[in-house]
């Protein structure tokens, strides 16, 4: 009964089945909302974070979500700036994903911060040397740009198309979209880097401290590379998942392969850079800070296997798979490789956040562990549910995959 809302030529399930699909996520949303209310009303003692683990699950998943949301800026960059027309098929979905990842990350940051009502202090009294200031500025600007990129997709929907003045605005916006893509790339370059810089500048923790190239630590560039690599993989992964769930052909296979190729080469460059950086870090930077590299991995929960897992198993293997023509040809391998790439980036963010704070710094420190409380997990699932809900609604009522119409004709 909501056919007039669905774009002509697209086939969607019936409304009751769609609502049935939304129901669990809505329940998750409600549970998450209750956890967030508790964190605001009772305070952050609801979480298992403490004075040693100032950053917990939320900051870790913020970083991961923003890294995976980088598909928006990179796809936009390839399409509008490098004029790779085939990406037109997934750019709308990438923009929606990017918007959801960034808005979700900012939402969870508002819960994570002790005094959210003072968030504007970072703008009014900025400390230009702090990486977090740069992240805050760029995150908010880029969310604005993403909203501007998301607006045309919404305005072209069947119902809103009748508002002629808005449609004309959308048409004009579409013409200047390249500018927004360029601005988005500029902003993403800085805040993905600054998220990496967050840990790289910490000379208090030899485990995360990195020597700097120019004014930024090397993790600045590693985070950009890994985000740019993980972005397209995540877009590829989500497109494949959506097509499996909706049992529809959404994009031509060569679009996914192109995304895989781009992600593969970038991942290869990232793995190379990560390797070099790790060698410099283990053999030069840490010893100079008076710490033996072996001590980083001397504790049972984080052995050297975690470095091997992150760089080789979840870094080199997917990179080689995605780079080789034959592997990309088989969709199963393509999807597996991109999933591994995404997990590699997620593991890197985990190591930077949790292991940095777990390792002792003072001689009489102990290795401490941390596990999130239910409120923390529920609050994060709130963001995941929010993402899935808005994406599902967008997929149903907006045209996220223009090629779906032709593909539907067979």
């Amino acid at each position, binding site marked *: 009964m909501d056919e007039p809302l669905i774009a002509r030529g697209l086939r969607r399930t019936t409304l009751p089945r769609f609502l049935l699909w939304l129901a669990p996520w809505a329940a998750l949303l409600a549970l998450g909302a209750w956890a967030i209310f508790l964190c605001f009303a009772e305070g952050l003692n609801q979480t298992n974070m403490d004075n040693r*683990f100032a950053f917990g699950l939320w900051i870790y998943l913020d970083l991961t979500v923003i890294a995976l949301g980088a598909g928006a800026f990179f796809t936009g960059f390839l399409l509008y700036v490098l004029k790779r027309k085939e990406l037109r098929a997934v750019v709308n979905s990438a923009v929606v994903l990017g918007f959801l990842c960034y808005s979700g990350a900012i939402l969870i940051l508002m819960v994570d911060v002790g*005094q959210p009502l003072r968030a504007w202090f970072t703008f009014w009294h*900025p400390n230009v040397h702090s990486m977090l*200031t740069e992240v805050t500025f760029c995150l908010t600007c880029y969310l604005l740009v993403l909203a501007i990129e998301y607006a045309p997709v919404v305005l072209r929907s069947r119902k809103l198309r009748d508002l002629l003045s808005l449609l004309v605005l959308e048409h004009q916006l579409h013409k200047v979209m390249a500018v927004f893509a360029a601005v988005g790339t500029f902003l993403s370059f800085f805040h993905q880097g600054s998220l990496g810089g*967050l840990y790289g500048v910490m000379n208090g923790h*030899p485990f995360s401290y990195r020597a700097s190239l120019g004014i930024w630590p090397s993790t600045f560039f590693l985070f950009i590379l890994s985000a740019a690599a993980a972005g397209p993989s995540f877009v590829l992964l989500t497109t494949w998942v959506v097509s499996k769930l909706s049992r529809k052909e959404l994009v031509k296979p060569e679009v996914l392969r192109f995304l895989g190729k781009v992600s593969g080469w970038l991942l290869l460059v990232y793995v190379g850079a990560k390797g070099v950086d790790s060698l410099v870090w283990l053999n030069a930077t840490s010893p100079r800070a*008076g710490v033996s590299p072996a001590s980083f991995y001397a504790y049972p929960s984080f052995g050297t296997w975690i470095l091997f897992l992150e760089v080789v198993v979840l870094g080199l293997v997917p990179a080689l798979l995605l780079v080789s023509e034959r592997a990309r040809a088989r969709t199963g391998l393509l999807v597996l490789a991109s999933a591994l790439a995404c997990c590699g980036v997620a593991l890197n963010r985990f190591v930077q956040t949790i292991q940095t704070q777990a390792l002792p*710094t003072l001689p*009489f*420190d102990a290795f401490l562990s941390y596990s999130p409380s239910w409120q923390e997990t529920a609050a994060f699932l709130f963001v995941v549910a929010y993402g899935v809900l808005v994406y599902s609604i967008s997929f149903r009522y907006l045209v996220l995959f223009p090629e779906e119409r032709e593909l539907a004709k067979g």
Partner: protein
Amino acid sequence: MEPTANPRERRHRYGMVIDLDRCTGCGACTVACSVENNVPPPPERSTERTGVVWIRVSEAQDPRPAGARSVFVPVPCQQCDDPPCEKVCPQRAVELDPKTGIVAQVAVRCLGCRYCMAACPYHARSFNWFRPEWPDGTAALLNPDVSVRQRGTVEKCSFCAGRLQAAKAKAAAAGSREIDPADYVPACVEACPSRAIVFGDLEDPSSEVARLARESESFRLLPALGTRPKVLYRSVEPWVRASLSQPEVSRG
């Protein structure tokens, strides 16, 4: 706040030398500091890791196999000369005051993002995880010279800045801009039963703390990290100096 160009006031670099041979880990410094600086008493569910403690005393055991001895190490904020917390705070709630060398933690501008806590290698910063409450009317006994911090903000040792402000006001009333050092003694220095903590201006070569700081038995925690802390420790025991000035002992 960047000082504008004008006749610069005399520079002080207040610092401490803590004698680890004297400290018995009795915690008088922690309690005195909490009374002086209105640090909230422990709420119901606070633990060793979520409590607000401005000077935390930890036990460091002799790492040598036969060693059964321990020393107790009081760790206040080290008031670093190159503070890792100041350069990471996104809204400049942390500021190394060039005139006194004290690293100010301005709770009213603090967002509670806790990045400074992650950056500090000395774990000298505590977060108000709980709402500060004073039971049974002890709120009337709070120190009027120190403002209470709010839930959701970070706080740390300020070298009893309230007492420095009172000393400067007293000196000003007598018409001078320089304080009498005897008027500015932090609460932990005053309360330590073994008189293990010596406090003073490291910039003044004649001060006791500067003399002790120059001695070979004095060392800093985590010297190689480049934070240049102004709190030094000393001990006649070689094993103490060896094990504590080393950044990290890897215990498998």
